[in-house]
């Protein structure tokens, strides 16, 4: 269920990029305003407070661009999708090979053959994942 909202957000970000940019900007501006108020309470003049708030925030435009890019980023783990793709390829390969040798699909050998194909591809996926994983965190 936790993937539903990120997927909806992803689609929304692609359909309404300007709306997303405005939303991100409003959020970042709120932060700078809050910091400015805090600086004024500490005794700075309003101009000093705003300048200090902008400096402590960093590059406003760069942060805004980064946030918009992340919002438009693909919300799924590509490694997991790759596993699904391997399984689909395995099933397809199994079906094609059964069709080629003309074995009926309800035959026990056809089921075994597909399981072997899935196992081989799953193993290659797991080996690939182990190699992708960094050695230390």
């Amino acid at each position, binding site marked *: 269920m936790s993937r539903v909202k990120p997927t909806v957000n992803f689609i929304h970000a692609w359909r309404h990029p300007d709306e997303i940019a405005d*939303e991100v900007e409003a959020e970042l501006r709120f*932060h700078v305003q809050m910091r400015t108020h805090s600086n004024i309470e500490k005794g700075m003049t309003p101009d000093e407070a705003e300048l200090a708030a902008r400096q402590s925030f960093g590059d406003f435009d760069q942060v805004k661009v980064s946030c918009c890019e992340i919002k438009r980023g693909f919300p799924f783990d590509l490694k997991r999708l790759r596993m699904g793709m391997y399984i689909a390829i395995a099933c397809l390969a199994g079906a094609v090979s059964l069709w080629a040798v003309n074995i009926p699909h309800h035959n026990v050998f056809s089921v075994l053959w597909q399981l072997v194909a899935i196992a081989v591809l799953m193993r290659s996926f797991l080996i690939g994942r182990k190699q992708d994983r960094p050695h230390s*965190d």
Partner: protein
Amino acid sequence: MSKAKAGLLQGTLDMLILKALFLGPLHGYGIGQRIAQISGDELKIEEGSLYPGLYRLERRGWIESEWDVSENNQRAKFYKLTRAGRKQLIIEEQNWERLASATMKALRAS
């Protein structure tokens, strides 16, 4: 001797954001404040870097956001932890403890 504030190790910002939100929903500015508060003002987060972190966590489904009215009656985006985010926080804490204890062991080796 001056008291130096600790910089953040790579990858710890996500865990700190999750921890801050574990204590209740907050807007981005509040999250920065809460992290400073729970770390006894020892951890200094570059304010702008907080937001890409928040957006990444939201994309992973670990936090979710909605617009609401802040304590000073302004519109603000509030974040809260999802169930997946709670699970992830437990995993991150365990990983962190393991890493910290292994690093201490290595440093104490004679």
